[in-house]
């Protein structure tokens, strides 16, 4: 009995010793650390994997999916081994985040657009083949459409041309970047169709945001969690329902669901790449300039990203839509020269 207790004691001491090692080890980190958007996560992990295969000398990068906002907090917390090197973002950095970064010593940041993602509405292949406009979507899903109380029960209530099917839409929760993008890209577009509401933007922006992007909470819009696979399953089980998610899920499940056209434009690779489809948004990565010289492999990682985002590159198989040629050329230029972004360009 004594012996085994002594053993446990020794183990505990050994552990506390290796504990202290851990503290000093973290000061010199040899793997790239990446945080941020869950939308960019599958792209970044694919690049990370390819990077490791091509450069066996470097340690595999560590990619964490924290959401764009959560990632920005970690990214902007400071410079040094304890803080991540790259931030994945499904939207542009905000001014407040940039200020937060500058306050913590993260002064120079390289901003690279990696491609385009589409927010799409989809339905089951056995569904009614709906054709919508952003205004229809807004009127059906807003908590207070054009400041009036929400009364729509069926799509026919929204637009007499639509079938009398009960409104049922599955979508992501408020913590998701996809939800933000849905609000900014599709809901706001529908919201601006009303001149009075559009005018509100100049006078009372908070009120405008609440009216335009607040979703109804009476069960017609269902928050299905961050798991987009679940939304796909729900759509197959319920042909009258619609779902909101990223384009990559539409591509992967093409045999079961199809995109709903908005303003007569079906979401496809080409319509999203040309920004014709209303739900297209750019995706970014942000790299800390101060880390470029210190973290081994960081430059090579950015270079690997630059080879992957072209048309037909391996990222296109993961649902990334290549940016137009001129944007890609600009991104490539930034990725090779690693020019820091101009903080003044952020609104």
């Amino acid at each position, binding site marked *: *009995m*004594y012996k085994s*207790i002594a053993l*446990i*004691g020794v*183990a*505990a001491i050994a*552990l506390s010793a*290796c*504990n202290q*090692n*851990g*503290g000093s*080890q*973290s000061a010199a980190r040899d*793997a790239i*650390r990446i945080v941020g958007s*869950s939308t960019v*996560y*599958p792209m*970044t*992990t*694919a690049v*990370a*994997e390819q990077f*490791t*295969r*091509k*450069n*066996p*000398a470097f*340690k*595999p990068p*560590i*990619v*964490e*999916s924290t959401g764009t906002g959560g990632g920005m907090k970690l990214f902007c917390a400071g410079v040094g081994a*304890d803080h991540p090197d790259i931030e994945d973002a499904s939207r542009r950095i905000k001014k407040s985040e940039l200020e937060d970064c500058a306050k913590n010593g993260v002064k120079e940041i390289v901003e690279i657009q990696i491609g385009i993602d589409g927010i799409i509405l989809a339905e089951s292949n056995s569904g009614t083949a709906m054709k919508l406009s952003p205004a229809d979507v807004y009127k059906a899903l807003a908590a207070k459409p054009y400041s009036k109380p929400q009364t729509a029960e069926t799509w026919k209530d929204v637009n007499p041309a639509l079938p009398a099917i009960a409104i049922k839409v599955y979508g992501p929760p408020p913590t998701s970047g996809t939800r933000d993008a849905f609000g900014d890209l599709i809901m706001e577009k529908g919201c601006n169709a009303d001149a009075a509401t559009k005018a509100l933007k100049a006078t009372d922006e908070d009120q405008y945001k609440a009216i335009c992007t607040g979703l109804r909470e009476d069960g017609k819009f269902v928050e299905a969690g*961050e*798991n*987009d*696979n679940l939304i796909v399953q729900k759509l197959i089980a319920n042909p009258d329902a619609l779902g909101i998610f990223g384009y*990559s*899920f539409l591509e*992967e499940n093409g*045999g079961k669901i199809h995109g709903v056209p908005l303003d007569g434009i079906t979401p496809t690779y080409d319509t999203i790449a040309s920004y014709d489809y209303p739900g297209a948004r750019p995706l970014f990565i942000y790299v800390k300039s101060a880390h470029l010289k210190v973290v081994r492999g960081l430059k090579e990682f950015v270079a690997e990203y630059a080879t992957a985002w072209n048309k037909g590159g*391996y990222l296109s*198989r*993961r*649902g990334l839509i290549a940016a137009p040629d001129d944007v890609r050329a600009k991104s490539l230029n930034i990725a090779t020269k690693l020019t820091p972004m101009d903080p003044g360009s952020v609104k």
Partner: protein
Amino acid sequence: MSKALTMNATDLSAAAPRLPTDWKGDAIKKRIAARYGSERRFRAIGLFAVMLSAGFLAFLLITMMANGLRGFTQTEIRLAVDFPKSALMLDPAALKGFNADQALAGADFEGATATAAEVAFGPDGVHLLSDAAWLKVRDAVKADPGLLARRAEIWVPAAVDIDVAAKETGEPAAEATLAKLKAQGLIKTGFNLGFVTGADSTDPTIVGIWGAFKGSLMTMLVTLVLAFPVGVLAALYLEEYAPRNRWTDLIEVSINNLAAVPSIIFGLLGLAVFLNFMHMPRSAPIVGGLTLALMTMPVIVIAGRNAIKSVPPSIRDAALGIGASRLQVVFHHVLPLALPGILTGTIIGMARALGETAPLLMIGMRAFISSPPSGFTDPATVLPVQVFLWSDEVSRGFVEKTSAAIIVLLLFLLAMNGLAIYLRNHFERRW
């Protein structure tokens, strides 16, 4: 005594003469039937409850097995690679020296595999193979540089849609391709060794569970080494030495409360103390273990105190009576007798820690890590978090891998509970 009773009876019968119980009467028959009926109903309800929970368990296990066992197999395609004719510029001699990995990294295996696939299966041949097929070709060459001099046939993983078609019903196009490959004898489905030895990947055909399994093992080890001694010593002190006063009451209440605190709170505590204050590495098993140890320790203290309490005082008194010191009483008698109970409590606490995700998400153990951890401070993930990450993946191939990971997690739990039962029986002593 009997007189008093008869007196009493006569008093009663004075009002209404007491008749002997009529066991044949309708009223009593009804009452007896009701008694038996309620007993039968209770038994039926109890049996139903057991059947219901057994049914849920069976449903879980059967669906997991049905989906997950496929995850342990892999469809492979036989690919003929003509190395001398391929565009591979590689000197076999270079593969024997120190720089073998560097030489292999520089060679274009991806292109060579694509060309070989086109030769063998037509212009769309590349899409039949997994994106990682060239890694298998590279490994084969690394294992036997002699291959470079001749035409070789190598089994490489098939693409996800072919894999799905081989195991269940896939897309019609993939099914047709599969039938064609089968007719040529170019396809086989076998045990997927890569799944039990590999780590996370973005490609379901080469993904592995070992990285997460090792992460779980390391995290559990840290938790055990910290929580077990601290928990047992705390329980011993509180039961055997601590004076009964307001302070020990306060500590007891605090420990009971701590055991009931939701696990996410421990995650926030770990984030604030270990990462932000002590600057320990993010995503490391050591931090995960420390956080889970905080969560497990109160459970061990409570189980330990109950086990120590149930050791009969006569054993303590006997030992003290023949001159043993307090310390000897505790370590020679009380602790060995209480050990089965303490161990059971510990394993239950550890099993809870093994299945925990919430606190680990807070300290960054949800990262994509493509190599198994090699030390306690290396970034790692754990089994339940891996299940969570895979369930969110886009590719269809990950569905069966998620179930397979759940099976591994269940087996791990089963092994731990088995160990608990063994230890309990091994140390159990009767008096």
